[in-house]
């Protein structure tokens, strides 16, 4: 694993006996004590994920807004200082290069958080389109460690342990953590309330230990995946690819074609004309666990493909997402999933697949 990178928390993961695997060029923890235990800690209490492998890009200058309107799918003009906004980064054909959060840190200053596997591609793409604008695009990934603290008790535990004021959901606040400047973001990837902290890498380990002592359960990539699947959040590389538009993926809500962003013509065409396939969440009815790549059948004929599949710990059922013929994407539609030669009955669900009884 000579070429793999390590986050500032690598020794912490080792000390806790985590199962460590290569992921997107990094050595990352999959689980510490078990995926199901970590999953339920986030659903019921509070867990934390080292997501320092994710990339950060700073966009600054008088042309920052006009530039981001060009490269990001959402209407960036609606993003106020201190706000957070989800967007797709599309190619000229409307295909999704990456999906990301943009945070507005100042009137002319934004921070973008990228997927680890796409960070280099995103940087090249962002750089290429920056020349026509009065803007500086900087790779600042080495400046931040990132910790996602998620779960119904995340805010209470975090604000008590770190003595900081936390921003509401979809907002970002400049705070001090470990006597260093940090950013607290009211965002996450679990379907629970929570906060993502962008920290000085040098204070990441002591903060991690402090949160462990406060009872926050360390969680790995395994439960990150089961949690996001239950919440029906797409994963780039599975549901999102440069070959499919956000409309096919059900992300039309984060596309504002009127801004004229790169790829907006293709997105407008798909929105108006529909697409052959659409992304649909589904649950297996009975036994069987679907996996990415499994064929989807309807009326005995091939009708799509599973992009992500897993065992849902909250529902104790096989669950997944699949691209299916658009007429089959409505909740309630009966499908079959070919799980390694065995046809398993499935039904299209509505998003999210799991929702806490309120």
């Amino acid at each position, binding site marked *: 694993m000579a070429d793999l990178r390590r986050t500032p928390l690598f020794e912490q993961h080792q000390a806790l006996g985590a199962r460590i695997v290569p992921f997107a060029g990094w050595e990352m923890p999959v*689980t510490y004590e*078990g995926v199901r235990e970590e999953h339920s800690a986030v659903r019921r209490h509070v867990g934390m994920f080292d997501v320092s492998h994710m990339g950060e890009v700073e966009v600054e200058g008088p042309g920052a807004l006009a530039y981001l309107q060009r490269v990001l799918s959402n209407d960036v003009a609606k993003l106020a200082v201190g706000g957070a906004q989800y967007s797709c980064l599309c190619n000229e054909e409307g295909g999704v290069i990456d999906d990301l959060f943009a945070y507005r840190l100042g009137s002319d200053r934004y921070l973008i958080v990228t997927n680890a596997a796409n960070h280099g591609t995103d940087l090249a793409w962002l750089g290429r389109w920056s020349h026509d604008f009065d803007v500086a695009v900087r790779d600042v990934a080495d400046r931040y460690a990132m910790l996602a603290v998620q779960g119904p008790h995340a805010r209470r535990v975090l604000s008590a342990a770190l003595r900081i004021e936390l921003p509401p959901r979809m907002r970002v606040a400049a705070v001090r953590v470990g006597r260093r400047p940090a950013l607290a973001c009211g965002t996450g990837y679990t379907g629970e309330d929570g906060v993502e902290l962008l920290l000085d890498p040098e204070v990441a380990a002591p903060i991690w230990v402090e949160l462990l002592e406060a009872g926050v359960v360390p969680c790995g990539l395994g439960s990150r995946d*089961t949690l996001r699947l239950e919440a029906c959040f797409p994963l780039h590389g599975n549901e999102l690819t440069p070959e499919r538009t956000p409309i096919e993926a059900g992300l039309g809500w984060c596309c504002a074609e009127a801004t004229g962003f790169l790829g907006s013509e293709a997105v407008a065409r798909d929105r108006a004309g529909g697409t052959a396939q659409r992304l649909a969440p589904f649950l297996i009815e009975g036994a069987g666990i679907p996996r990415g790549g499994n064929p989807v059948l309807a009326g005995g004929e091939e009708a799509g493909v599973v992009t992500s599949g897993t065992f849902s710990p909250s529902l104790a059922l096989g669950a997944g997402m699949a691209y299916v013929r658009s007429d089959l994407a409505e909740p309630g539609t009966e499908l079959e999933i070919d799980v390694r030669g065995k046809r398993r009955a499935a039904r299209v669900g509505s998003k999210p697949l799991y929702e806490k009884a309120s």
Partner: protein
Amino acid sequence: MSEANYPDDLRYHDQHDWVRLEGDDHAVCGITWYAQDSLGEVVFYDPPEVGATIQKDASYAEVESVKAVSDVIAPMSGEIVEVNDSLEDAPEKINEDPYGEGWLVKVRLTAPAEGEGLLSADEYRKLLEG
């Protein structure tokens, strides 16, 4: 169980399966401590049918954890005479007690001599140390 454990009274297949011989021509099969530890929490066991024949070195069942699926390889050839139905509701027994309550199938052996070619507990431990 959290500690690696390979009982001396079992025979082992190098694909991380164990067999407990019962009488001249019957055997109980399962997966080893190493196999269940590598897989993580087992959440699903898809057993073969009683009456099905299984062949040494070929897959006869699947066990799945949250993240992965793994073929279970037959350590010996024979006919399935019993499957562990209790695993349907409690597949975690494969993790908790891989040599006891986590057994997978009972087999009537069609080639009992195949047992000679399997590994002893010591040999299997050496294989794992690699």
